[in-house]
């Protein structure tokens, strides 16, 4: 589904990513972990087109991508959430999700002006689907609330709903459980399992090791921009390089 080959990203002299090669299979939940500053979010930004990689390229759903064009990748089927929530704060929750439908709908200026049958039907479909998605992630009752007035956990869920509205093949979540309490994290876990159950591949950056271990099929570990381990959670947890990266290995 997603195959990166030797991706590198430099910011000036700083090498944020080097030689990252991953392979994410269709239908799995793939975890990406690593200490702070390891390059996880940078990799995310490359995969979603916000950054242009300095080296390497990636292949998604059979097509090659290199240049950073976020809307092209969204159209291709990669949807994301942000580490520091980036909702359209002054629009309602429903409007946020409706904007997510943009990429799968067609009405243009003439449709908007004439509001012909096709456009009206499309608008109705957008609204319906968006309501469904709001309920799906569990904020169905807050459709008319402004995004910025939702609770933190609800905002995280709304961001997932907005991403799902783009009909993604791969859903990339950047620390979705950050700042959530145990109950919220547990229901997030259920939600992610449901999403995977519906056939969407999930790429997950997370610090909550318990969540990663309980949820992911496979995990990759980044440290200083390099992949130091990859495999099933049990195996990665025992990997000496990973332990060293997290606990400070000293001189082995």
């Amino acid at each position, binding site marked *: 589904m997603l195959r990166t080959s030797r991706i590198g990203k430099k910011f000036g002299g700083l090498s944020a990513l080097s030689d990252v090669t991953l392979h994410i299979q269709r239908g799995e939940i793939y975890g990406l972990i690593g200490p702070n500053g390891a390059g996880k979010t940078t990799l995310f930004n490359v995969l979603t087109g916000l950054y242009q990689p300095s080296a390497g390229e990636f292949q998604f759903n059979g097509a090659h991508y290199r240049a950073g064009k*976020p809307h092209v990748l969204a159209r291709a089927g990669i949807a994301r959430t942000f580490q520091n929530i980036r909702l*359209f704060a002054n629009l309602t929750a429903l409007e946020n999700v409706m904007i997510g439908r*943009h990429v799968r709908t067609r009405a243009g200026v003439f449709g*908007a*002006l004439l509001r012909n049958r096709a456009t009206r039907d499309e*608008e109705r479909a957008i609204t319906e689907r968006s309501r469904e998605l709001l309920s799906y992630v569990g904020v169905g009752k807050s459709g008319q609330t402004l995004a910025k*007035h939702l609770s933190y956990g609800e905002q995280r869920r709304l961001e997932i709903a907005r991403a799902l509205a783009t009909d993604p093949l791969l859903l990339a979540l950047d620390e979705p459980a950050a700042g959530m309490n145990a109950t919220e994290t547990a229901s997030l876990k259920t939600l992610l399992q449901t999403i995977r159950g519906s056939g969407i591949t999930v790429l997950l950056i997370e610090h909550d090791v318990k969540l990663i271990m309980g949820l992911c099929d496979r995990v990759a570990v980044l440290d200083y921009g390099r992949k130091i381990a990859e495999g099933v959670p049990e195996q990665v947890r025992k990997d000496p390089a990973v332990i060293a990266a997290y606990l400070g290995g000293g001189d082995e």
Partner: protein
Amino acid sequence: MSRRSLCGSLRFGLLATLLRGFFVMQFSDKRNRLKFWLVLAALLLLPFITDALLGRSWVRIVDFAMLYIMLALGLNIVVGYAGLLDLGYIAFFAVGAYCYALTGSPHLALAFPMMFPAGVHLPFWIVLPMAALVAGGFGVLLGAPTLRLRGDYLAIVTLGFGEIIRIFLNNLDAPVNLTNGPQGISRIDPVSVAGVSLNSTQHIFGIVFPAVHLYFYLFLAFTALVVFVSRRLERSRIGRAWMAIREDEVAASAMGIDTRNLKLLAFAMGAMSGGASGALFAGFQGFVSPESFSLMESVMVLCMVVLGGMGNIAGVIFGAILLALLPEVLRHIVVPAQQALFGRTLVDPESLRMLLFGTALIVMMLYRPAGLLPSRVRRRELGADEPAAETSVYDATH
């Protein structure tokens, strides 16, 4: 069927569709329908009432206010919906006006006597859409280099573009006399609708319609069209995408919105309204010169949008009327008042206008930062919130 009547029936067909749409959208229930007819009647009588109460010169002032409404609504698409701060908007008004002036006056005979011995005199129904399209083209042209800029930087670059257009118009009298430089272009053909020149007094059913009244109705029709277009765009997939860009451009593009195309579209739609307004201005005035398109005009139009309530059509209209009428009201009050009090004019109304205007803006920013009639969104943005149970536009229209 002759070409002219075919054209006419097409035009009427389109008009009927638009009117019906407007009607269905806004006035579907009975009370609203009554309100619609009352407003329409008041608007149709407005030039006569103004004429009777204040005199003919005021009808002309009202006509200009209508042009400003169109301008402000056009800029509202760019600034209010898409969140792109444009300080050179008057350039599109200028482009529209010069389009009309060049293709509806003897002027081009000066520059190209061989090609156009009598100048160019295209009919209004061709020139107007052309002016709008050319202005729209300029909107894209000037918008394209600014796509990566935001906020203050965007404002500075657009300001520069606005000035470039004005300076070009000022200097394009040599080597080929295209714009006649600072003297401007005069003897522009008046607008004529269905063979009737609007620059003449008409008698219809025994009622006398002077030229300013006729232009009022023309401008009213176009203003209604711009309002209609704005409303429809606001509540559409395109409008939502613009608002997404305004709220968070990075998130918008990550959600699959092609921010480049949509920003260009906003520039183009805004510029088209400005261009149409400019063409009407040229026809109405019969004369255009670069000094009508100074930076101050751009600032005024932006102030209309901000003062009235960015993003809210009613607010923008209100702001435009207010700022368009203010200098005239001052002129009619300040001078006589000073004469009566001091026996002579101490303060020139023009300078008083800027003083009052500046004060008004400061007071506004302190007490009503979202504008006089804020939009739903701006109201929220600035904290004054209504209960969460408010009905959404989407509920209201489905």
